[in-house]
């Protein structure tokens, strides 16, 4: 049982100096003190930068874009190829850097689209209530009734296998979660005095929603979005594992596991590296999500060091 008060290393000097300390500032302060969160951030930045600067980082950019190198088929990890080569002799590390482009992009795009559709709908639904609320909620019910991966597969097949269509299909299964989250938040906000006050002095509804409701739901949405990035990457990988999504010769992690699984028992480095990349990125986003959630919660923020 510790009786020592946690070391409150809040930016005291700033506060004393009369600077305004924002909520985000405090979150960042709490976040920085969580070693797992920082590690996750480093891993993610590594993958993101690796994907962006892939052509500059690898000696085999043409293999990253898909050119075969048949002389070196299935060579195990060695000095020239740190993670070995694939069934067409291409450098696996290079393929992973290039594959990160679509795998990471799908995570971010899916979440962004889901937030853009889900959040406004949730705010409107919660703020107005009545038949609008009812209608929106019944629509979310329908989407949530489907197993998400299957709905994405069906939609992507209907639209045709491609990166954009996969992204659209997954986003379609994702937005209702944000609608529900924001609606619940809005419902409780609506009862609060500052909204009541704004309404009583005649502030128009759209203005209340944009300047009072939305800013106040951003923190839970941010927490959810961070967690969902991992989930969206996982679903994206699953969809391309099945054969929809990015098509060869372009690289994609899910697609790499899908092709490499046939050789996996004898040559695990190919599918294994791609699978590990998916796992690491998803894990990092999940840890990051946990950390953001803890940092956003004033109750846990204080004991980031002491507890856990």
């Amino acid at each position, binding site marked *: 049982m510790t009786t020592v008060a946690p070391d409150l290393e809040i930016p005291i000097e700033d506060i004393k100096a009369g600077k305004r300390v924002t909520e985000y500032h405090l979150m960042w302060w709490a976040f920085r003190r969580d070693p797992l969160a920082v590690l996750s951030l480093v891993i993610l930045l590594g993958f993101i930068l690796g994907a962006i600067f892939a052509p500059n980082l690898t000696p085999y950019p043409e293999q990253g874009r898909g050119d075969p190198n048949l002389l070196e088929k299935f060579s195990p990890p060695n000095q020239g190829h740190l993670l070995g080569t694939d069934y067409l002799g291409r450098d696996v590390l290079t393929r992973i850097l290039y594959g990160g482009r679509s795998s990471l992009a799908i995570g971010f795009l899916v979440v962004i689209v889901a937030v853009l559709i889900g959040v406004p709908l949730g705010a409107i639904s919660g703020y107005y209530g009545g038949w609008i609320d009812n209608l929106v909620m019944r629509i979310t019910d329908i989407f949530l009734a489907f*197993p998400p991966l299957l709905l994405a597969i069906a939609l992507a097949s209907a639209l045709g296998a491609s990166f954009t269509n996969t992204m659209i299909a997954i986003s379609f299964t994702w937005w209702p979660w944000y609608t529900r989250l924001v609606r619940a938040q809005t419902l409780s906000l609506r009862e609060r005095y500052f909204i009541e006050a704004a309404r009583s002095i005649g502030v128009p509804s759209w203005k209340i929603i944009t300047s009072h409701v939305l800013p106040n739901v951003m923190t839970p949405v941010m927490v959810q979005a961070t967690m969902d990035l991992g989930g969206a990457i996982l679903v994206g990988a*699953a969809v391309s594992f099945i054969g929809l999504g990015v098509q060869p010769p372009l690289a994609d992690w899910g697609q790499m596991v899908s092709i490499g699984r046939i050789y996996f*028992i004898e040559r695990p480095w190919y599918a294994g590296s791609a699978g590990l990349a998916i796992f690491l990125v998803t894990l990092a986003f999940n840890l990051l999500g946990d950390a953001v959630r803890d940092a956003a919660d004033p109750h846990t923020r204080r004991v980031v060091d002491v507890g856990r």
Partner: protein
Amino acid sequence: MQRLDYILKRMVMAIFVLISVSILTFFIARVVPSNPAAAWVGPHPTKEQIEKATLELGLDKPLYVQYQRYMQDLLSGDLGTSVRTHQPILSDIKTFLPATLELVFVGMLIAVLIGIPLGVLSGAFKGSWLDHFTRLISIAGVSMPVFLLGLLLQLLFFRQLGLLPLGARVSTEVALFHPVTPITRMYLIDSAVTGNWTAFKDASIHLILPALALATYPIALAIRMTRSTMIEVLNEKYIMAARISGIRERSVLFILALKNAIVPTLNALGLAFVYSLTGAILIEIIFSWPGLGTYVTNAVLGVDFPVIVSVTLIMTVFYIAINLILDILQAFIDPRVIIG
């Protein structure tokens, strides 16, 4: 009779959702594709095929007529014909579904048996090494792509240790000399019912790895949910009252507290069930498991659009049914659910 009212209300809601789901799948099948008739007959269609399909599906008619026809077909069990197998989709599904269900049920069983006790203990001993350990398992479990886990299990148990088979539902030997008599097409049940214990043992051994891989995500979900609700419940006054009246800690945790924590956990299990259904698609590919997942994956590769839409619909119906059952179960576990 409040309970009956509640159950009826849930059923009506489930039917409403079923109808809405049929509308959405109708849109996916007949409206979203740029050329629905071509999509329906498969890759490289001939002009005659397209014309025939247009007529059959009523694609020249207004949408509500098309939907009416779609529903009539569905209710009479006509899900269309597979482009690849040229079989009625319903009979294909009847062949493949039991294998998937067997896998999913065994996986869920493992998840419940491992996940809930671990969640209870880590909630009860918050901050202990056990709690940290299960936290690690659960966060790794939700981050692990299920296909990678399947491959790693194969590498360890088949390649390195040589303990368990690589895939398939039974070994070739058993398939040839001790074939399972198909009754339900779930091998464990069928072989047990017919007393074919050689096949039962073989089928069980083949189930271990895919079921374990499939169970990981639900285990993680069950741990997380049980843990957080246990922490909440253990702070309740009735738990303090029970401890003060000398009830054994084991009974406090696993009877008095767990029954309160189980309702939110059941909801999580409903979610876990969907992930298992969809995870099964990926697992079946890895373990050459002849179930719906293999069927739908082959459909994706063969651009067998009617199959994809029908499997989606069937699995969704299953999911809705499971959620309905969980809702009803809740009404029996927690009497307060009915009033709320």
